[in-house]
């Protein structure tokens, strides 16, 4: 009964989404205010319907209803309640439902917050969002119905993939989807602008917060995924250039470019065509990621079980949205004339450089990810493009990006000179060189890590210089600076903090370049030395969890004969899924991680232990968090809030 209710709610959502597409778009064309006004309520109605479907599916999981195929395939009564709930989106069908739910929520948010949006633009944006929704709800109903029944019902489910039974992975997809879907909103704005043939500063003011929000969530989602790979896969690494990882990185790279070019549209009404194109590509990359992960064209540890038939449907959707938008772009972008002109050396110029470099990195990652597939399919050639290629190809592009991102915020609009910028950055430059030399000496003459630390110092100090310059630090009394700092727009703080976050991540990457690891087979009581620590295996014992059994090692870490930590890495066995997982033990003090993994045991009582000393590893995720905080701060800027003055009044119409 609940399953049928959910199915019906989803079908209802499809009808509402269709209406949300047709009525406002026709209304905007005919300038019919009543048809345009239908967009908001329809968006809210569609959200309610999809939320109901999602609630139904959650209920089926919580109740462990084994007459529903999706529950049988992905759940089990022995699973902890938390993972029963998160299991709802831990599979293809449920995650798709979450995807359309977030899309609908974004539509409702546009309807709710967009009170002072020009009515035709608002109607068109909601219409395009409705069209995106139609495609994905239809896809869910046609090929991936999560409410399908099974007869006769089995006694119990087949369990969730144990690797996915993890809190980090439970919140990773929702964050990522908010990011992806956020780009659906900027895409809708871009398409609406193309239909209207007009892009102006007001458009930029609306696109920027959405791209900022999407970017912040995507940053968190990617960081969480990387953190999960770090502690759960037990390889000690944080980024593997896996195609699925790349699929989430591509929209992030384009989205970062969009974030910066949208500023130029908002402030200077230049780069309009380019920004519209980026908005389309950002969503295109999100869809491409969806296609790659769910169609089965690539194999990866992360991808869902899938079949080519679904792939065909997603490809059709991808081509419809992307091809349609590009065709519209080719047809209409002619009409967009830039009004702001600027010199090559200027704030705009530095943002163009940022865009060029980010897009080059995107192109490298894009080609590196897709080329092996195409070469295989076209020429039957098996090529593998691994981390060496990506590292070698992206590093030279990242260097100028990092150098320029420090100088850009210090430049004035329209026309700038390099000399005054250099004057304000000299101490960051000196610090960069000092860190480079010290890093080179201390790291045992390793160039790349030393460069990484130097760039980190450069970016963080340049962000500080930016704020220091704006508050006239040391040029006026401190009290005066303090008052200025309080009056500084939050977007300025957000940009500086976001940039500093990149610096922290760079330091983390450089630190990980100096990580040490050792592998040894030890009997209980034996120990090894690494990174100035003594790692002693005290013993290995059995351990039983709610739905797994495990072998847990106890490793004492000693420094100068003193036990500083006892680590307990384990290897879990999930009998229902017939699968092993590795649980790394991590001891962190925010400067470095001590990381231990237990491997196989031989019959004679020896166990293989792998231990890592990961310098600055926590900074990778702290830095990503700081970037997201910068994004959030910028999002709370006055000019974003001012553009939605009726928010308090509108709050009642937005269902949470």
């Amino acid at each position, binding site marked *: 009964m609940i399953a049928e209710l959910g199915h019906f709610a989803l079908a209802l959502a499809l009808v509402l989404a269709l209406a949300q597409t047709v009525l406002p778009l026709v209304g905007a064309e005919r300038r019919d205010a009543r048809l345009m006004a239908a967009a908001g309520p329809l968006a809210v109605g569609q959200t309610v319907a999809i939320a109901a479907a999602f609630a139904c599916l959650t209920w089926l999981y919580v109740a462990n209803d084994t007459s529903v195929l999706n529950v049988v395939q992905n759940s089990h009564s022995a699973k902890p309640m938390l993972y029963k709930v998160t299991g709802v989106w831990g599979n293809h069908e449920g995650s798709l439902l979450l995807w359309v739910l977030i899309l609908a929520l974004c539509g409702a948010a546009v309807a709710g917050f967009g009170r002072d949006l020009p009515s035709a633009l608002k109607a068109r944006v909601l219409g395009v969002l409705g069209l995106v929704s139609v495609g994905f709800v239809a896809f869910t109903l046609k090929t991936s119905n999560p409410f399908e029944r099974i007869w006769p019902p089995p006694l119990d489910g087949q369990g969730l993939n144990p690797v996915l039974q993890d809190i980090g992975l439970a919140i990773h997809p929702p964050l990522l989807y908010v990011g992806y879907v956020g780009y659906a909103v900027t895409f809708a704005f871009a398409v609406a602008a193309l239909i209207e043939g007009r892009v102006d500063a007001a458009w930029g003011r609306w696109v920027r917060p959405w791209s900022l929000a999407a970017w912040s969530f995507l940053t968190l989602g990617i960081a969480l995924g990387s953190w999960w790979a770090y502690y759960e896969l037990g390889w000690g690494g944080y980024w593997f250039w896996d195609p699925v990882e790349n699929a989430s990185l591509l929209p992030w790279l384009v989205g970062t470019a969009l974030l910066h070019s949208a500023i130029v549209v908002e402030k200077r009404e230049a780069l309009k*065509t380019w920004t519209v194109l980026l908005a389309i590509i950002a969503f295109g990359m999100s869809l491409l990621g969806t296609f790659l992960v769910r169609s*089965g064209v690539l194999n990866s540890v992360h991808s869902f079980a899938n079949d080519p038939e679904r792939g065909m449907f997603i490809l059709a959707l991808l081509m419809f949205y992307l*091809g349609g938008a*590009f065709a519209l772009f*080719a047809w209409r972008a002619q009409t967009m004339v830039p009004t702001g002109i600027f010199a090559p050396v200027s704030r705009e110029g530095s943002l163009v450089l940022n865009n060029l470099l980010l897009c080059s990195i995107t192109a490298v990652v894009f080609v590196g990810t897709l080329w092996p597939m195409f070469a295989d*399919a076209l020429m039957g050639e*098996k090529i593998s493009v*691994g981390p060496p290629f990506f590292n*070698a190809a992206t590093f030279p592009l990242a260097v100028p990006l990092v150098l320029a991102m420090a100088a850009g915020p210090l430049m004035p609009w329209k026309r700038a000179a390099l000399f005054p910028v250099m004057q304000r950055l000299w101490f960051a430059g000196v610090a960069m060189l000092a860190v480079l030399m010290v890093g080179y000496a201390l790291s045992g003459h390793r160039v790349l890590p030393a460069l990484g630390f130097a760039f980190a110092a450069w970016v963080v100090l340049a962000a500080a210089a930016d704020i220091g310059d704006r508050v006239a630090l040391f040029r006026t009394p401190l009290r005066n600076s303090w008052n200025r700092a309080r009056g500084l727009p939050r977007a300025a703080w957000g940009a500086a903090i976001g940039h500093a976050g990149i610096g922290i991540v760079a330091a983390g990457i450089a630190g990980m370049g100096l990580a040490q690891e050792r592998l040894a087979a030890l009997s209980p009581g034996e120990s090894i030395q690494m990174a100035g620590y003594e790692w002693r295996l005290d013993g290995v014992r059995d351990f039983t969890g709610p739905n797994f059994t495990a072998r847990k090692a106890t490793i004492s870490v000693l420094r100068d004969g003193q036990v500083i930590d006892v680590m307990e890495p384990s290897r879990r066995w999930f009998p229902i899924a017939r699968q092993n997982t590795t649980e790394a033990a991590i001891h962190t003090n925010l400067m470095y991680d001590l990381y231990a993994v237990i491997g196989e045991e031989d019959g004679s009582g020896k166990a293989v232990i792998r231990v890592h000393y990961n310098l600055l590893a926590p900074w990778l995720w702290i830095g990503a968090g700081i970037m997201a905080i910068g994004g959030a701060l910028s999002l709370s800027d006055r000019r974003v809030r001012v553009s939605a003055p009726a928010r308090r009044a509108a709050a009642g119409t937005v269902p949470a």
Partner: protein
Amino acid sequence: MTPLARRTLLFAPLGVAAVGGGLFFGMLRDMQTGEYNPRGVPSALIGRPVPDFALPPVEGAEMPGFSQADLARLGGPVLVNFWASWCVPCIVEHPQLMRLSREGITVAGIAYKDRDADSVGFLRRHGNPFRLLAKDQPGRTAIDWGVYGVPETYLVDRQGIIRWRFAGPITDEVLAQDLRPLLRRYAS
């Protein structure tokens, strides 16, 4: 920019998307008919000749570097092993390489992104299974070979054709189940 050039440029994204879509369509169609299987990834250059390379020696190892011509001159199956002193699984597979070397199998080692002194120290500590030894410090040759990471091992037959690739340490199981039968097949 002339209006025509601008117009052409505006059509470029559509063109790229159309080509990409066509390729993906072909891929999915072939997957349905079974002509294309993304999961059967035997790898890089199986059945193809060794890519051209000429690598310098590891300083201090007192062995010359080698090139693909040197591999061909050996006239028999050769295992080409990419390794590094900093690579943990390389230690795991080292005893197997030593055993193969003692049995008279030619193993050629390429030290990947390693410092000479470290490479030499590694071989001194654990023994040297390599008949040929060279270094690939910049990692360019590894890219040509499609190396995913170290250790990675390739079997090259007497005609200089790559017959097998294994990414990861050669454990006893890999040796017994995969490598031994192949060595027997290509030995004659």
